[in-house]
């Protein structure tokens, strides 16, 4: 089989992947206090600075108060960051410095199980962040219930997409320092140009196409906004299909790349 074909092979993942998820969950629970506050504070800061501060100049955008407009973007960005950083720096530390993956594959678990467990955990981190932020947004009265609860399953699928993308970088990075490249060359531009703090429509057409074609966050923000306003958008179907396809592709390729890196 050629190298390319290997990358597309469907990995054999067993239910044992759940053990790896559980290991990470246990560690998270041990330090829940330090893990709990960042999303909470993050939501407060964004809402105050951008929502109330900048928002007071902007007022309404497309008939929606500015702070309500950015609220779903805050959720989507937080889901992206939680999953992405968990499966880049977090997974890399466990793989390279702690040798945890080596220790685990000496048991009945396979490397595919280990990576699948890590990806599920990355998605779970996204869910945890969004779930912690939701009450803050409700308290500020900037999202509408009960449709906004849809952001929780959206955080999971979006989180899985970013976890898979992150794990691809982790699988090919020569060292931990080079993981900075995807962080500032991909994550930062995405955070700004994915219809997060202003509508894509104000950008030149070429930027809009790039954002729609290549930025996963564009689609997650779009779906989250439909849930929190709530108002179905014209590109609902495109968003859903894009995210589902990207999630499957990223996860499969990341597991195969990791296998190639670790099983020699």
């Amino acid at each position, binding site marked *: 089989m050629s190298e390319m074909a290997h990358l597309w092979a469907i990995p054999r993942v*067993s239910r*044992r992947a759940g*053990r790896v998820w*559980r*290991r990470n969950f*246990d*560690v998270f629970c*041990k330090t829940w206090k330090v893990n709990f506050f960042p999303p909470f504070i993050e939501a407060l800061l964004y809402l105050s600075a951008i929502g109330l501060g900048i928002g007071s100049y902007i007022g309404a955008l497309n008939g929606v108060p500015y702070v309500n407009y950015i609220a779903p973007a805050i959720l989507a960005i937080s889901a992206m960051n939680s999953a992405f950083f968990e499966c880049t720096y977090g997974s890399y530390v466990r793989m390279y410095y*702690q*040798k*945890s993956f*080596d*220790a*685990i*594959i*000496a*048991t*009945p*678990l*396979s490397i595919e199980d280990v990576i699948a467990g890590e990806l599920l955990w990355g998605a779970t981190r996204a869910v945890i962040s969004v779930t912690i932020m939701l009450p803050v947004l409700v308290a500020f009265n900037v999202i509408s219930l009960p449709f906004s609860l849809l952001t929780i399953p959206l955080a999971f699928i979006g989180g899985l997409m970013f976890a898979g993308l992150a794990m691809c970088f982790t699988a090919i990075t020569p060292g931990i320092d080079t993981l900075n490249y995807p962080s500032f060359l991909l994550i930062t531009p995405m955070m700004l140009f994915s219809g997060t703090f202003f509508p894509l429509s104000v950008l030149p057409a070429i930027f809009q196409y790039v954002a729609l074609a290549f930025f996963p966050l564009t689609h997650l923000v779009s779906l989250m906004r439909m849930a929190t306003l709530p108002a179905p958008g014209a590109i609902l179907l495109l968003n859903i299909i894009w995210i589902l396809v990207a999630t499957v592709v990223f996860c499969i390729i990341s597991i195969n790349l990791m296998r190639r890196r670790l*099983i*020699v």
Partner: protein
Amino acid sequence: MTAIIEADELTKTYNDMVAVSHIRFSVKKGEIFGFLGPNGAGKTTTMRMIECVSPRTSGTLRVFGMDPEVNPAGIKQRIGVVPQETNLDPDFTCAGNLLVYARYFDIPSAEAQIRVKNLLEFVALTEKRDTAIDKLSGGMKRRLILARALINNPDLLILDEPTIGLDPQARHLIWERLRLLRAQGNTILMTTHYLDEAARLCDRLVIMDHGTFLVEGAPADLVREQVGSEIIEMDNTPEVIACLDELGVTFEVAGDQVQVATDASSRELAKILLDRCKTSRVSTRPATLEDVFLKLTGRTLRE
């Protein structure tokens, strides 16, 4: 006797580099089997193939009669691994490490608690139960890794340099535990650079170099067959060498020493050498596995 591991023509290549080349061996139930060899000889690669974490390039390999390519989970369920590198989980305590590891083997929680208690006792770490990993000494870490490898009551224990960097007390404790495990019917596979350790523990061993086996056998037999029973050592001076040449005695130069391997008649030979060669020092000592090792693999430093 049932064979626990059977390998035939087992080969592993990395790109163009041959790490293990056509080796053949079998390990019987209940024995301690050792892999010796300089760095890069292929010992760890062989272990990793048996542990089902590195696929073989060619040849056959069966562990408990199963093929690592076909049924890795079935094999791994029944083996315990002590890796060369310490890879304990720094996010958990001693007991936490064992409990989390028990879950990977699907050991029910109540049963795991009992095993953790017994194993911590077995490796003399009961008092460190709730201690973080980074607070442990090197010896404690190795002992905890041994306990971790035993969490699934393995039928086969694979140890890659189990006593590396340990003080004599810790090494003796590990040796004692390994003998105890063998007495309980466990099969143990180990690599080591400590030849005294191999001589003490191993029922059988192989010396490997450049991916192939040089010799295989029981430690005492190997020493007798390859070297003899005694070694006479003298200072490496031109006079001594000229004298030995004149007498027609076979010798080997080892740094500042000249060594003559002999059988039981070493005393007579030593006396002759002391009389005939102009040297102040002639000493005899029993031959060891180290003499076999250096004879077969040479004295050149390996990377």
